């Protein structure tokens, strides 16, 4: 018994990556970045705002947080809706309390179904990032290119129709892309996407699209839902991360702490207090620059 001889051939074993999507560089070898007003750590609040149809389509895969029981899954449908009706407003209030602007990664369906939520986001001055159509709008290489192009266009159209502004940024569900996604996002006029968590500063795809890494390891979904840790532990971990980044920034230039928040996870009554405490602690740190994704990309681009 042997493997196909091709299994021991390595046609892309070469300097650089085994793909041509973006070039390699080390964060420690780049020109240091400086954030506005002498701040050294950009704290980027990114909230995913999602609508899960009670009928998961699984094309090409089922989104994290989607329905789990036989139809009708009232349990998960309504628990996710709780995040949008109640939890999200707790988050908006928490942001107001410390006077910070966030990026809201919203499904197009949020704009279609709940225009009031979009109006409230816009009124508070937050950024809206396009986050697919609804939670059946997952992307992967088995999704036909025309379908993916249509999905991106529909997501952008829904948000622009209600908010009056075409989003500059894109976040895919579960950060999942096809081979075509960076090209289709560029074609759709997007300035940046957030799916590749391989770095801690923005970088450019070969086609010019900017990637602003939204670290999934620091998300409430990963720490609280997947790893089953408490909200207090989450807050401690974010402060530990901040303090390390602030120290590193002293010798290597500006850093980013991305906080990826989900209303139906973090904004529950028994967790929101820990999150509010975290915001207060971060706001008191002299190195903190609370910034939206677009503000970070603007500042970074201006220094390239």
């Amino acid at each position, binding site marked *: 018994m042997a*493997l196909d001889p091709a299994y*021991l051939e*390595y046609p*892309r074993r070469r300097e650089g990556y085994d*793909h041509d999507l973006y070039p390699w560089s*080390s964060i420690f070898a780049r020109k240091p970045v400086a954030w506005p007003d002498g701040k050294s750590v950009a704290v980027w609040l990114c909230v995913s705002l999602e609508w899960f149809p009670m009928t998961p389509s699984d094309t090409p895969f089922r989104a994290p947080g989607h329905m789990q029981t036989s139809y009708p899954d009232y349990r998960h449908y309504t628990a996710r809706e709780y995040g949008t009706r109640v939890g999200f407003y707790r988050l908006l209030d928490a942001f107001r309390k410390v006077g910070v602007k966030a990026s809201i990664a919203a499904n197009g369906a949020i704009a279609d179904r709940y225009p009031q939520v979009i109006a409230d986001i816009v009124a508070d001055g937050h950024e809206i990032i396009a986050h697919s159509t609804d939670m059946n709008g997952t992307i992967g290489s088995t999704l036909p290119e025309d379908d993916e192009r249509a999905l991106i266009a529909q997501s952008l159209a829904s948000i622009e129709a209600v908010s009056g502004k075409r989003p500059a940024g894109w976040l895919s569900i579960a*950060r999942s892309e096809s*081979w075509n996604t960076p090209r289709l996002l560029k074609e759709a006029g997007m300035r940046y996407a957030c*799916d590749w*968590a391989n770095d801690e500063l923005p970088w450019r795809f070969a086609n010019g699209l900017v990637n602003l890494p939204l670290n999934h390891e620091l998300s409430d979904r990963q720490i609280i839902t997947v790893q089953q840790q408490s909200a207090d532990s989450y807050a401690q971990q974010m402060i530990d991360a901040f303090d390390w980044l602030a120290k590193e920034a002293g010798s290597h230039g500006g850093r980013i702490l991305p906080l990826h928040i989900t209303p139906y996870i973090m904004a529950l009554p028994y967790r929101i207090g820990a999150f509010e405490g975290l915001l207060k602690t971060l706001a008191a740190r002299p190195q903190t620059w609370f910034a939206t994704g677009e503000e970070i990309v603007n500042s970074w681009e201006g220094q390239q």
Partner: protein
Amino acid sequence: MNEAQKADPGLYDFAPYRDRSKIVWPGDKKVAIWVAPNLEYYEIDPPTNPHRKSWTKPHPDVAGYAHRDHSNRVSHWRMADAMSKYGFPGSVSLSVALCQHHPEVVKDANERGWEFFSHGIYNTRYTYGMDEAQERAIIEDSIRTVRDATGQTIRGWLAPALTHTPRTLDLIAEYGLDYTCDLYHDDQPQPVKVQSGKLISIPYSLEVNDHYGFFVYNMSPREYADTLLRQYERLAEEGEMSGTVMCIPLHAYLIGQPHRIGPFAEVLRHIAEDGRAWIARAGEIADHYYEHHYAEAVHGA
């Protein structure tokens, strides 16, 4: 191999922990401690091995690939600086194709005085299903690639993604490698039975591997740091009587995340200051064991 041989391939003799002759590490240290960073390359679009799937999603698996890419753009240097600061050299489990893809990472490790052993060509190419000629090819490729890139001759093996064949250990011994990291039966080095040459197992660890800590046991960064300290404390205490080995196997994309590196650096500081640890490379531990204990373990006192 018949069924009885398959059920117990005779990797080593049974040797209970009690009443062994004591290992005394250099400087009369109680526990030999080595840090094993896995410097890996995962391909974005690897061919399929019929015995094991690589990515869980159709390629590209952006979340999985990008997570591992974080090692080679950000977290390698973060992890390595913390190690260097407290005097811990690495013994690197290397996807040897990293020498081609990101020579900067391999060069950095080499300049810090780290030792390299092979972890296969890529962590997305598995040994399952290989015939002997194919397995020889990846061993020879490993030896040649690391020698060309670093000037070092590899002395150990950790199978790529922990995929072996029943002939792996015989083959690496035949090629003159000194140690395997694939056997988890002991807290001390142990002789491994091979057809030709000599081989020992060096305690690596799955249990305190950062991957297990964060993704099997779902620990917070501070819980993982506490786990390492408890592991160290116990092995240092027992090492007074037995002479133990503690390995800290790492992946930069896990331990080098900003919320984890601080608590981990504190662990290194504590162990470095404690005084009971012989901070060593895997090859130094192997040398000491071969010189002072191997013959007795194989032939009796």
